[in-house]
């Protein structure tokens, strides 16, 4: 692509991703009363984050066993009440050490 075409592509991508991110937040201004929709929106974050975590975490690791070790370390430390940063460090270190094997 030429310099100009690349800039156009970047601009189009930026506009589309802003629209996707901002439209619901700016358009839905009322409190949703419908019980199903409220429940649905309550469950969405957990489903999304869980779907994105597994098996992507295993695939991102050096080998599946290292990924599973990191996942287990993350679940255990998060379950024990560790915060975002400690859990992130623990999973990284576990993956690094398990990946060496």
């Amino acid at each position, binding site marked *: 692509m030429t310099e100009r075409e690349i800039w156009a592509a970047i601009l189009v991508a930026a506009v589309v991703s802003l629209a996707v991110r901002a439209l619901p937040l700016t358009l839905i201004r009322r409190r949703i009363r419908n019980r199903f929709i409220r429940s649905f929106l309550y469950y969405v974050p957990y489903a999304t984050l869980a779907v994105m975590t597994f098996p992507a975490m295993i695939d991102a690791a050096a080998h599946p066993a290292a990924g599973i070790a990191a996942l287990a370390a*993350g679940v255990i430390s998060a379950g024990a009440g560790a915060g975002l940063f*400690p859990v992130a460090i623990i999973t990284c270190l576990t993956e690094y050490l398990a990946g060496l094997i």
Partner: protein
Amino acid sequence: MMRRETDETRRMIRRGLRDGLPIGMGYFAVAFSLGITARGAGLSPLQGWVASILNHASAGEYALYALIGARAAVWEIAAVIFVTNMRYLLMSAALSQRAAPETSFFGRLGTGFCITDEIFGLAVAHPGYFSCAYLWTAFALADFMWAGGTLCGILAGNILPARVVTALSVAIYGMFLAIIIPPARKNLVVAGLVAASFLCSFAASRLLPGLSEGMRTVILTVALSAAAALLFPREDKEEGREAP
């Protein structure tokens, strides 16, 4: 009163910096490898930096650089960016229920711009209305580190050892676990939903390899959340006056 508000804002900014930093560090590593892809597609360091500041989405940007490298048509780029980022529609809708009533149009627009998987995670991790000062600060720090990572990746190529990049790329998932596991311990339905999400996501990735990760996330999120909402609708009193 005024005084108390500024103090509160300052507190939120400090908390945003504290929580944005680890996210930014994970971002830097992921964006670094993204920069290597961008370099291959022919982007200049400035183009990579601008693209990352504005798009700040790993899957979306990988797709963007791949399409630029393949000389794809503009409409095709728009369609793929829409699909890879579709989960943000859901996150944005979920956040719309957690905006304080006095949040302005620009407050909502700006918060929408800030949505990434991790920033959304921060918003979810704190119950009640979201704080713009908190989310925007965490986002700004993380986004500059994200764009900086892309820039360095384009400029420097492979400096970090591959082992380190791999280990750092797992950090993001560790953060996701820190967000979803504590509520799952308290609420059996959430625990079941997380387990079902893991299983379905794994099955879909292995049985339907043609389905992109972005689409898989969207389809499974909608299906599983709808099933949970049908089977286990939430009582309004569980949420009190404040948003879930």
